[in-house]
């Protein structure tokens, strides 16, 4: 019954992670927007634009090959920024963050449990979209460029998780959470070439999107999936921008993340 063993941090984190996963899969909206919708969009975009060719650096590329990294980007952003921003705003406003601080659980473990959940779902979606692209549309799986893909998943997830926490600072209430995150992310998907090939976007839109992390995440994934990429597919410039955004997000989150309800 009574044990006096000190809980190790890793076992606490795994414990918390187990319940966070459970809660993620029980939230229909989260599952739809993070898991179902990206797969649906892959199917839709390839069905509609499948015979077109997009252009990358002046070279033609099959639309299906273009959309796999696009949809991977959508899934990653959804599993991290969107998911964390909405979840933590709700947890904050419902007072669950405040509640958990009355327990001996180290606060950062509670945050890390959700980050781990987001990371696992990110990896799952990258694998799922890549596999579907390969099996259904014959899009080749990066092998030579695997380091580029792996590094993008790593840097992208870290940066986007930090940005998700930062975003809770500008969301005033539970009800505003989905609206605020979508109002920010939806235009960025369009401007960043995730939905509409980059080469068909006006120059100003591309330059504008280059300020924000979504385009850099997408370009990093694209260089891993693009058969014309030479070398290991590591897009250092884009990864650098992602990292910078991640650090910015971490600083904002450290300063502005709240544990108690605003409302």
């Amino acid at each position: 019954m009574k044990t006096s063993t000190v809980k190790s941090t890793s076992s606490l984190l795994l414990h918390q992670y187990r319940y966070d996963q459970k809660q993620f899969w029980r939230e229909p909206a989260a599952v739809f927007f993070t898991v179902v919708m990206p797969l649906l969009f892959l199917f839709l975009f390839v069905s509609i634009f499948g015979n077109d060719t997009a252009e990358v650096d002046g070279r033609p590329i099959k639309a299906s090959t273009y959309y796999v990294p696009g949809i991977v980007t959508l899934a990653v952003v959804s599993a991290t920024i969107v998911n964390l921003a909405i979840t933590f705003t709700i947890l904050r406003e419902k007072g669950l963050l405040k509640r958990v601080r009355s327990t001996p659980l180290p606060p950062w473990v509670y945050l890390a449990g959700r980050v781990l959940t987001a990371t696992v779902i990110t990896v799952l979606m990258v694998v799922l979209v890549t596999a579907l692209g390969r099996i259904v549309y014959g899009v080749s799986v990066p092998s030579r460029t695997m380091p580029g893909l792996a590094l993008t998943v790593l840097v992208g997830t870290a940066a986007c998780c930090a940005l998700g926490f930062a975003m809770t600072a500008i969301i005033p209430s539970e009800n505003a959470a989905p609206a605020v995150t979508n109002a920010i992310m939806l235009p960025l998907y369009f401007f960043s070439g995730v939905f509409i090939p980059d080469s068909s976007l006006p120059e100003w839109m591309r330059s504008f999107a280059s300020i924000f992390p979504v385009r850099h995440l997408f370009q990093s994934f694209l260089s891993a999936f693009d058969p014309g990429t030479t070398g290991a597919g590591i897009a250092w410039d884009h990864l650098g921008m992602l990292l910078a955004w991640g650090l910015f997000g971490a600083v904002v989150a450290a300063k502005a993340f709240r544990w108690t309800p605003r409302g």
Partner: protein
Amino acid sequence: MSGPPAVTPVGSADVAEPVITVSGLRKSYGEREAVRGLDLTVDRGEIFAFLGPNGAGKTTTVEILEGYRERTAGEVSVLGADPHHPPGGWRERVGVVLQELRLPSLLTPRETLTMYAGYYRSPRGVDETIELVGLAEAADQRNSKLSGGQQRRLDVALALIGDPELLFLDEPTTGFDPAARRSAWELIANLRDLGKTVFLTTHYMDEAQHLADRVAILKDGRIVAQGRPQELGRREAAVTVVTFGLPPGLSASDLPAALAGRVRPAGGRRVELITEAATRDLAALTGWAVGQGVELDGLEAHRPSLEDVYLELTGNQAL
């Protein structure tokens, strides 16, 4: 910490340090002073009720004791430590029920309790705790499907799962129907049998009267009365309230001179008389009525209840 040396002697065998010691506690929010110099001690194993109208400073005080808020001034010791800078292991010993319900809607009570149990080194058993709060039939439903009373029970169960020595319950029955309140009271009374110390805030005097070993009445950030519920009543033990209806056609000024100036209206034709010499005043009153050949409608004499004391002290702003 440097609490006052006076340890209130209690009849119990273990002469322990008080669980909570507060002296000269103050808390300001900008210009506004929410708590203005509180002193109190809570002894091990007692249910201590913090009673006061909304806005009296109850939640501010309890959140300082729980470690959520920083105090502006004064000394606070909870389980021998400053709650705002708790030493390792302190949170293992404290259970908290916040004023609003705080439950993850997508888990079941059993899952929520198992999750919280994992945060503690030596938690209570999950099944046993579910049993204790009477949630056995609802244990595997989603939390969002539970009734208000069941959700509050789960909230209390979460505070208990770490097997704490001290429990804070902030207005645990606000918004309950009478049946749910009764069963919550039973649950809280059971906590005393488990040897827990309970710090309860409430704005219901019947709740304090029913549950508490000791009560402090708070008004405008100050304690205006403190003691056992019976003693609080007895503060004015010398006082009796006599009420009756004025006979038709007569007014207060027709009463005997010794009484006429002292009665005050109590609604409709009823008047009340507060007296420290009930026997003499009643004799004068009834003698006068018999002499006039009138009946005093609904004549009664009673000791002030805790409610009367409370309303008197808090200036009727409670309800």
